């Protein structure tokens, strides 16, 4: 790890101001960042510690970006009103990391791509060089099956697809300025120098996640498939939220993780369900729609199969 200056921020505006200086990075728990620092993938001159920022008294629809994964997993209100978020938080990482890792950190984390996380390897996002996974002989088994451009990274966040399915918005802060975005708009396509795939302006930070409880959010689910239950990132994750009225799908949101460079809203799946009864036939059609746009790489075609089957399982759970 390169030496850096350590600054403890007392508030978001103060943190934001500190981050205006070049070569500085924010750190909440920093469980992901510390790995990257140790590997010298990032070498900031200063770290701005967000963990001591006083959290505003939250109303139930406002989740502080500094809430830990453990807090989210243990919150009864979340369990009741946002089961998809509860499930995603509960399965993330390990107990020790859930005790430190934050909501904001989970949303802004860096892909698990081995080329990205290794100083010196060929990586589009680090320095514009060709994506190692896409080069001949490259390892692409865990990578994206959708929207692969110059970078084949799969987005690792498990909370993001759950929150997108729940229709969450994020509140960003920069100095005294605040703006609110739909969560899916937080993410930007892969670009050199933007490791975390988030379209934040210099000094801008995620302050909170805004959620509204609804019949749809209460009827939500998050499923993931991973190779090692004890501790692993998902190979494929699916989150869905459905509101049924008189037996038909009145409103629906579906999102997937680990299958594209960004958490992916599955509009083709939503379209296949909207207005239809949620039954075996519509679910099969929706799951088929999920993989229509998939363009797997050399060795990850199985992720499309798994996506299909997880979609079926997720939607089956919402039939009521």
């Amino acid at each position, binding site marked *: 790890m390169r030496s850096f200056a350590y600054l403890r921020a007392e508030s978001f505006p103060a943190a934001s101001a500190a981050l205006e200086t070049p070569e500085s990075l924010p750190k909440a728990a920093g469980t992901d960042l510390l790995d990257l620092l140790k590997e*010298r993938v990032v070498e900031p001159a200063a770290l701005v510690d967000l963990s001591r920022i006083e959290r505003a008294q939250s109303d139930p629809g406002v989740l502080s970006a500094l809430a830990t994964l453990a807090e989210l997993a243990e919150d009864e209100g979340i369990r009741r009103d946002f089961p998809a978020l509860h499930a995603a938080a509960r399965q993330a990482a390990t107990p020790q990391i859930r005790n430190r890792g934050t909501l904001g950190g989970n949303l802004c984390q860096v892909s698990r791509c*081995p080329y990205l996380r290794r100083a010196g390897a*060929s990586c589009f996002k680090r320095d514009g060089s060709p994506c190692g996974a896409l080069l001949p*002989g490259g*390892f692409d088994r865990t990578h994206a099956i959708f929207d692969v451009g110059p970078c084949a990274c799969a987005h690792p966040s498990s909370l993001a697809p759950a929150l997108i399915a729940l229709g969450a918005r994020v509140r960003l802060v920069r100095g005294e300025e605040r703006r609110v975005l739909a969560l899916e708009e937080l993410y930007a396509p892969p670009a050199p120098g933007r490791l975390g795939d988030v379209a934040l302006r210099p000094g801008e930070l995620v302050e909170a996640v805004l959620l509204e409880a609804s019949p749809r959010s209460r009827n939500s689910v998050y499923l993931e*498939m991973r190779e090692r*239950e004890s501790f692993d990132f998902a190979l494929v994750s699916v989150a869905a939220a459905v509101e049924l009225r008189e037996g038909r799908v009145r409103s629906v949101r579906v999102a997937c993780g680990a299958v594209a460079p960004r958490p992916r809203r599955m509009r083709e799946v939503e379209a296949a369900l909207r207005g239809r009864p949620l039954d075996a036939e519509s679910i099969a059609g929706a799951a088929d729609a999920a993989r229509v746009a998939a363009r797997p790489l050399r060795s990850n075609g*199985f992720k499309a199969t798994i996506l299909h*089957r997880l979609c079926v399982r997720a939607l089956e759970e919402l039939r009521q």
Partner: protein
Amino acid sequence: MSQRTLELGFSGHSEERRVEVPPDAPPPWDLRSDLKVAGKPHPRLEARLKVTGAARYTADQRLPGMIFAGAVRSPHAHARVRRLDLSRAKKLPGVLYSEAYPQREVRYAGQAVAALAAESEQVLDDALALVEVDYEVLPHVVRTEDALAEDAPAVAGRRNVRQGRGMRRGSLRRVEEAHARADVVLTREYRTQVQTHTCLEPHGSVARWEGDRLTVWASTQATFAFRQTLARALGISAAQVEVITEHMGGGFGSKFGADAWDVFAARAARATGRPCFFMLDRRAEHLVAGNRPDSIQRCTFSVRRDGKLLGAQVTSHGTAGLGRGAGVLNPAIYAFEATYSDQYDVLTHAGSARAFRAPRHPQGVFALEGMLDELAEAIGMDPLELRRKNDPHPVRQAQYDVGAEAIGWSRRKPSGSSPGPLKRGLGVAAARWAHNARPGTAVRCRIGRDGSVLVANGSQDIGTGTRTILAQIVAEELGLPLAAVEVRLGRTRDPYGHGSGGSVTAPSIAPPARRAAYACRQRLLAAVAAALGCEAESLSLREGRVHGAERELSFAAACGLLPTESIEATATGGPEDMSYPSFTREVAGVQFAEVEVDAELGTVRVVKVVAVQDCGLVANPLLARSQINGGVLQGISYALHEERILDARTGDMLNANLLDYKILGAREVPEIVAIPFSVANGRTSTGMSSLGEPPTVPTAGAVANAVANAIGARVRSLPITPEKVLAAIAEAERTRRASDGEKKKKKKKRIF
């Protein structure tokens, strides 16, 4: 010599045997021995130190003035070093020592090109980043298959494919004759992956000089070999070096001698006059500290319709990187009429393999046991029945019964008949091992006039429980409780002991420990005979007391009568206590696995493993179960998850951590029913057999067979990943559909 009759074998299957016992040796333990301390489930002696964090491992040494060392490693598998510049690094304040290795070529990713020692870990880290290396990347090959190609870059010498001595065995002609008599002949290809040892404690050492004497705290499973290799590398005498390994965090075959980093630490310590610390990080562990070679095994096996196994023919290719020893061991368990194996090492630009818990066995047994199940399927026989028919080992025959009962083998359904997406299956596989008691280990026993008992040996306890077993043996011989015996291990100033490899440690150390204690016991009894008014021969030592015909003394009081401050005896394991005729020639083991496969997602969950393992006489059931559990753990991990992934383009390892290189965690571990199977084999005076390695041999084979039983399709390649499971299911479905189509057209003779 005195004559003794021993009862050997196991419960329900024993026989008497006459043996001659040398005069200065205790008679061997057998089925009739009524042991009080040995063979009992005592918690390990150092457990308290380990659960409180007080046990000091190598990296826990904190010496005044200690400096820290690390290496600059090549990210390229094959490259010429054009320029290597340490000047900026050396200018950094706090950098105290450096070495450059300007070899013409690096031949694997991870190879060190320079090493540095510095005041602190932070300075070291900064300095390593300042070393400038200009590499000219050269053509390389890191995959076994690629290295076999005609136009593959040569790794060393002209050819990448080598066959060492002993790598061709058996008679091809006889195997072909056997195949010709068979009803079914199958040819299949099985593959296994490269597995890294992944000891939780990394490799490394701390070196300190005092004058011309060197003390090294090392994480090693062979203190004496470490001392020897280090002394040789430094050009000094082994007598100048003391190696200390009090506690160590796993080796599994990868820690047998001093490595380049250990030599660097010693040189840096000598040059700077300060103790030097050098532990590998996790990435280097995976890259440079050894691995289990992979294999591509082409197998042609044959069987008669009545289940008689006929021919077994295996051609294998595997890579040990730049090293050797990628052979597999497989048709060795069952009584085939003829076997032939032809094995090749394939050189690649990758870190060298090292011995890894039962080298050659798990990969070979995976293919062998898969082939057996495929043959059984082809002749319509229960796989367990096929094994019973062809297994010559009396112990395994009994173990099949025990294991089948414990797993509930009668529940096994025809392969692929499990309905629904979650499919259950059962599988079985076996292991063999040698009774590896090796002569040459020396143990010193000392009884003090104060009643203290000390046992000492310079070899190490790598977590297997050697320390505890030593105390049990000596306590047993002296009729004392375990707590009365103090054990000192892991210092090379004490008597010689072998490296912990080949599962030799307990079987080799126990006989001399017992004989050293026996010698002390004889001398103690001689010293107190007069006081008790009878002959030494008529005295006995039990329950902490010396018993005479009429009178008795406490052990402490007896020791108080010693004429000298202490009595001491050193015994060396040799023919007098480790070469009696043995009940069996091989250690036997059988494992059964039950799995649940999610046939939609391709994931495999191991539900239960029953491991029945021949331990000889069980030294300590708690420790024996731990060894078995651990072997099963590593076997499942190997079967389902572990795999070193090298980037074909750069040759660098892509999963050199503990997240992407997946070893089994608590949620993956099934219910493990470890059944230590006690066999009095009579070979040594203490009867313990090799146990460290055999329990990991059959696990992957049993799990793979259970998966095939569950899904009705076979994955012939490890690790059994979701995509392989899904592909096997899809392939089986295609075949079934095609053959249904065929059947409709015309009835045809079945061809295998």
